[in-house]
C-alpha cells in the first residue's frame, strides 16, 4: 500500500530532515520498520531497547490512534496518512 508517513519536527533531524516520507507498507509495523531501515538514527527514538514502541511516541493512521486499532498490526490502505506524534513539553530550555 502506498502510504505517507509524517515526521514530526523533533524527529526530523534523525530522518534526513524530511517532513514526510512516501513508502509502500501493509501494516504500521512495516511502515515503521521501513522508516528505521532508511534512517537508522530514528530507531532509538521510536523503539525502546526491548524493541517496543516508546510510550511517549504515538502513532496514528489518519486521525485514529493505533493503540485503539490493532496497534502495530494495524492494516494500511492506499493513501493512508501515518502520523508520528511524540510528546513535546514546550519551552526553549535545554
Amino acid at each position, binding site marked *: 500500500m502506498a502510504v505517507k508517513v509524517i515526521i*514530526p*519536527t*523533533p*524527529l*526530523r*533531524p*534523525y530522518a534526513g530532515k524530511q*517532513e514526510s516520507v512516501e513508502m509502500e507498507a501493509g501494516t504500521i509495523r512495516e511502515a515503521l520498520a521501513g522508516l528505521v531501515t532508511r534512517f*537508522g*538514527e530514528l530507531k*532509538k*527514538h521510536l523503539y525502546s531497547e526491548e524493541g517496543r514502541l*516508546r*510510550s*511517549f511516541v*504515538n502513532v*496514528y493512521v489518519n*486521525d*485514529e*490512534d493505533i*493503540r*485503539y486499532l490493532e496497534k502495530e498490526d494495524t492494516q494500511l490502505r492506499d493513501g493512508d496518512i501515518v*502520523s508520528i*506524534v*511524540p*510528546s*513535546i*513539553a*514546550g*519551552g*526553549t*530550555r*535545554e
Partner: protein
Amino acid sequence: MATRIKVPNSTDAANPSGALSKEEIMRYSRHLIMPEVGMEGQLKLKHAKVLCIGTGGLGAPLGLYLAAAGVGRLGLVDFDSVDLTNLQRQILFDTNDIGRPKIEAAKNRLRNLNPDIQIDTFETRLTSENALDILKDYDIVVDGTDNFATRYLVNDACVILGKPNVYGSIFRFEGQITIFGNPGGPCYRCLYPEPPPPGLVPSCAEGGVLGVLPGIVGAIQAVETLKVIIGKGEPLVGRLLLFDALAMSFRELKLRKNPKCAVCGEHPTITKLIDYDEFCGIRGEESASPAQATVPEISPRELKSRLDRGDDLFVLDVREPHEFQICNLGGYLIPLGELSRRVNELDSSREIVAHCRSGKRSAEAVEFLRSAGFRKVLNLKGGILAWSDEVDASVPKY
C-alpha cells in the same frame, strides 16, 4: 451533540451584586452585542476563576486575552525573572522588565490592561506540595509550562481535583492543543503514559521556537478557556489539535480516554501527587545529562592555554550549521545527529576536544566517540557559553 464541560463553582448569573457596571458594559460591549456571549456570558466570565501556570510564551497571550475578556479572577504562577531572550516571544514583557520577576511584570501589565479584575500571583515553582492548594480555588487550569515534570504534575492535580486542564505545548514551528480532564475526558497520561527519558528529549540542537508560535497556541488556549466558561461552541475535548506553522496547517487527531490510565483509568494507581522530577528521570532543572556526568572534560581556560601552546588538538563542533553561523571557535563542524554517519572523517590518533553551546550535546558526542573506539576525546566544559564567560567575551552567547 456538543460536549459540555461543567465549570465548578460558577456563580449564579442572576446575582445582582455581580452585575456589570456602566463602564464594564462599555468595555465589554463587543462581547455583549454577540448573542453567543451576551450579558449572560459576560457575567460568567466576570465570575470565572482561571489559573495560568507559566507566564512565558504561552502565558503571555493567554493572560492578555483572558484579562481583556474580563475573566474576573486570574491566577498566575511563575518563579522566573524576565531575561533578554524572553522578549522574542513573551509579549507580556518589555525591555524595561528585564531582571524583574515575571509575576510582578505580568501583574502590572494585566492590571493596566484591565483594572476591574482580580489578579492573584504565586511566585513559586509549582510542586507536588503546593499544587493542590494553589489549584483548588480555580475553575479552570491553563497549562503554559515548559517541561514534562510540571505538565504531569498539572495533569495529575487537575484529575485529582476534577478541573479542566487547557493544554498547549510548542516546539519550533509546531504546537499541540487540547482540553484534558473533567468530566470524563481523556487526560495527559491517556495520551502519553510516560515522559521521554531525559537523554532522548530532542536537545538544544533541535530546540528553539518561532516567536509567534506560542502566540497562536496560547491564543487558542485562551479561546478554549473562554468557550468552557461561557459554555458555547464545541470544546476541544477528545481531540488533539496539531498546528504546523511552517506548513500553515491544522490537523486533528482523536484523543481517547485510556481505561487503563494510571491516574484517570478504572483502577488508578496514582491517587495522590508523586515526585515528578523522579518520574521524569531528572533531579532539578540544572541537572546534567547522564553523559555529562561521566565523560572526561577540559575547561575553556585549559583549552585556550593548550591551543596557545601549540598542542595538536582537533576541535570538533557538534552544533548545527545555523548555530555555527552565529558564532564559532573555528572547530570542525559535524552536527551530533550526523556524527555516527561521518565518524570516518575523524582521526582517532589525534586528541579531540568536542564542544557545543552548553556542553550537553558534546558530552553525548564524546560518549559516542569513546564507544566507537576513540581514546583521546574531551568535552569542552560549559561549551561556547563558558568559553565566552571565561576566555573570550567577544564570542556572543545565544
